[in-house]
């Protein structure tokens, strides 16, 4: 875990944000500000410490989630229909995937524990 890893995580996060929020300047700049804020908060962490590693992993997970599991929709008419911005990175599973509940995707995860 080094300085470069933090920068790579930051870059990855910014890339994911621009994929997830393409065409939505308001969300995009908010996401970038939020990413920056969190990286600034952890600026003081010692490179290689446990907390440092944890924060970088967290950033990479957020990036993956934004890229694969966030899809934006835009209302296209008054009847409540939305056009979804499903892109090449969006995670798409079929029914079999959902039954299996593979470890590395969100497929098969229940939305609430109760």
């Amino acid at each position, binding site marked *: 875990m080094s300085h470069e890893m933090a*920068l*790579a995580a*930051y*870059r990855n996060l*910014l890339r994911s944000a621009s994929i997830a929020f393409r065409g939505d*300047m308001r969300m995009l700049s908010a996401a*970038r500000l939020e990413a920056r804020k969190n*990286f600034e908060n952890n600026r003081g962490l010692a490179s290689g410490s446990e907390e440092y590693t944890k924060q970088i992993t967290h950033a990479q997970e957020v990036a993956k989630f934004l890229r694969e599991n966030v899809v934006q929709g835009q209302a296209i008419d008054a009847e409540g229909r939305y056009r979804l911005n499903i892109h090449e990175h969006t995670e798409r599973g079929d029914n079999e995937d959902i039954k299996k509940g593979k470890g590395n995707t969100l497929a098969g995860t229940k939305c609430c524990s109760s």
Partner: protein
Amino acid sequence: MFRTALLRSARQAVRAAPRWQAPIARPVARSSLFQAKQITPSAFQAVRCYSASAGLSKEQVEGRIMDLLKNFDKVTDVSKLNGESHFHNDLGLDSLDTVEVVMAIEEEFSIEIPDKEADAIHSVKQAVDYILAQPDAH
């Protein structure tokens, strides 16, 4: 007689119909990373033509990168901005700012710079050289 009149009116209708104009140039999309402080209206900056297949000149690339940095609000001392400026030593940008600058450069030239190469870009000159070496950059 009747037929010629009909044809004439049909021809006129066709002529009057609004023709779809093929766009020959589209306005430059402003960088989404940095908002321009003020947009300078210039005939040459307002349109970008895709007809020319020739590569970018060094001056063009340098100019576009410098414009981008001029609009980056973290650059405190614009007077130090020139073709040789170092992002950290001259412009006072930290490593996170540098990541943002490099991403804005990617967006500007419609390319994606791999992490390893992106980490090696620390100055205007390095960025210009990298872009010039990319055949896909435009």
